[in-house]
């Protein structure tokens, strides 16, 4: 399991965020609040737009609730060559930007898209650029980037459920009436056996430190399991519980609930 958090800051490591386009009613700052449904939107009709993050240190980025069908993620140190005054390049030549790498182009579903990208750890300030392309005005819900704390994956048999806030009533003839509203996923029975130091870290330095604040989490970190469904932006339901069955290891039990 991976969690984007700087345990000293108790947040992620994004220090600045801008976008190539934004609707004044849906500013890019919305990507940094705790609501995946409180959107950043590009200006009306803009199908491709980029989000620029300045990150103090880190190795992963998470983006939630986007209508994009593709995302291209670029990591850069910000270093560039600049010509001295009076010098110019010959036709056909261009300066190389150093420290810039494209981590990949990712296909997304076009609705409620979830993206988690790991990249080579950079302990210095760097830039993360996410170029999103959609079939309509492009938008996204939240973005988090920075340091990643890694733990063992939750044991098999973890449960997944949901809270459905839809309205359901009975009509006079017994037929069902409903009005669909938000459905929020829940994960329960999450359990992992960790070293005692890691158990302390997960409980005290992460979940107890931020309380009910939601976190960017890749629930299953194993590289062979790539389901987007395990990319979540969730809060703990109650503070994690620790059991100390041995002198070296502790068991962590907790439940998570996605936020909207």
């Amino acid at each position: 399991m991976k969690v984007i958090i700087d345990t000293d800051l108790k947040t992620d490591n994004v220090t600045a965020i801008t976008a190539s386009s934004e609707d004044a009613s849906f500013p890019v700052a919305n990507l940094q609040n705790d609501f995946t449904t409180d959107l950043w939107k590009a200006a009306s009709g803009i199908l491709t737009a980029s989000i620029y993050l300045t990150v103090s240190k880190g190795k992963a980025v998470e983006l939630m609730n986007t209508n994009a069908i593709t995302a291209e993620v670029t990591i850069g140190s910000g270093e560039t060559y600049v010509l001295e005054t009076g010098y110019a390049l010959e036709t056909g030549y261009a300066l190389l930007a150093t420290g810039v790498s494209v981590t990949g182009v990712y296909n997304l579903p076009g609705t409620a898209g979830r993206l988690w990208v790991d990249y080579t750890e950079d302990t210095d300030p760097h830039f993360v650029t996410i170029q999103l392309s959609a079939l309509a005005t492009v938008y996204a819900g939240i973005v988090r980037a920075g340091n990643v704390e890694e733990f063992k994956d939750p044991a098999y048999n973890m449960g997944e459920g949901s809270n459905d806030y839809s309205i359901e009533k009975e009509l006079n003839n017994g037929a069902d009436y409903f009005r669909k509203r938000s459905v929020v996923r829940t994960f329960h029975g999450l359990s992992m056996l960790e070293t005692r130091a890691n158990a302390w870290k997960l409980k005290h330095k992460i979940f107890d430190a931020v309380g009910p604040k939601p976190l960017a989490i890749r629930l299953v970190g194993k590289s062979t399991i790539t389901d987007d469904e395990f990319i979540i932006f969730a809060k703990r339901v109650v503070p994690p519980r620790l059991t100390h069955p041995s002198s070296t290891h502790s068991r962590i039990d907790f439940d998570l609930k996605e936020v909207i």
Partner: protein
Amino acid sequence: MLLVDITIDSVVRYASVQGYALTHNYRPRIIAFDAPMLAIPSDHGGFARMQYGKIVFNPLLFSDCSVWPPQISCPITIKYTDTTEAAAETVFIGTAHLDGFNRESISYSLYGPSYDETVASATAYNDTLNVILNTILTGIAEIDAIDTTYARASSPNVTYTTSGIQLAIELASAIAQFYSHLIYVSGTTAYLVDLKLDNGSRTLTEFQFFASPNYWYKPPVSLARCATFIRSSSYPYGQELSVTAYHTTEANINTALDDIIALENAPRLNFGIPMIAGNFPALGEKVTLPDTAHVDDLSSWIRARKLRYDFINDMVNIEGEGAVAAA
């Protein structure tokens, strides 16, 4: 979708129960909203005033705009739509006044227009109901015109001289009640509707209202008295009703009292229907509904007199008097 535009620190903020990314960003900032109710003051008519309870906001509404403590008085517009913001139907324009707040919520009461114009003492009226209510109501700043499309075809005569200064809206309401009319205001137009006429109509199927309608009967009015005149109902038992006369002739008064007794003694229903934007029932609208959930099937109708808008559960509750009969 409930949409609330509230002006804080001179800037319009957008709030709703759930988050909706429409033309504006309606953030999920409403925790609770007492269902507003549009109802006439008696079961035989009068001015239907929208009665509001409280609206409770998440403190984030104010931290979004760095205003704290909460603003005491805020202009507010409440709208409802099923689709787009442009298609939203405005339900209320008024003022939200701060009730109180704690760490978790901020509560406001809603206030509509005050209609505080008055009618001078010893003002003499002697004309038709339509003409007199037009005179009184258009003297109120917020009302520009009166629509009498569904008023009684032969508008009854009003003969009355005021005694003491009176609020114009209360005088209009009392006169309308005596002649079994209701008044409601939409925009800047006052609508005068005869309680014996249909202000539009709709017929529901059992797929269009919730289980289960409540049928009820008030204690009967045995007689209605007005000055020196008395009219009896078909029930020799029950309660007496006193009303103020807005005419001096016995025949006119008797007709008015008979209408009042018939309305007061009619069976009543209330039931809920799904809230559909652009299709809210109107006061005075005739609603016919079948009900096959009883030992024998029923076919009933009412005219809407009380509308309760439950925006949290997307439901409109309708109450009124009418007729209940076997199908």
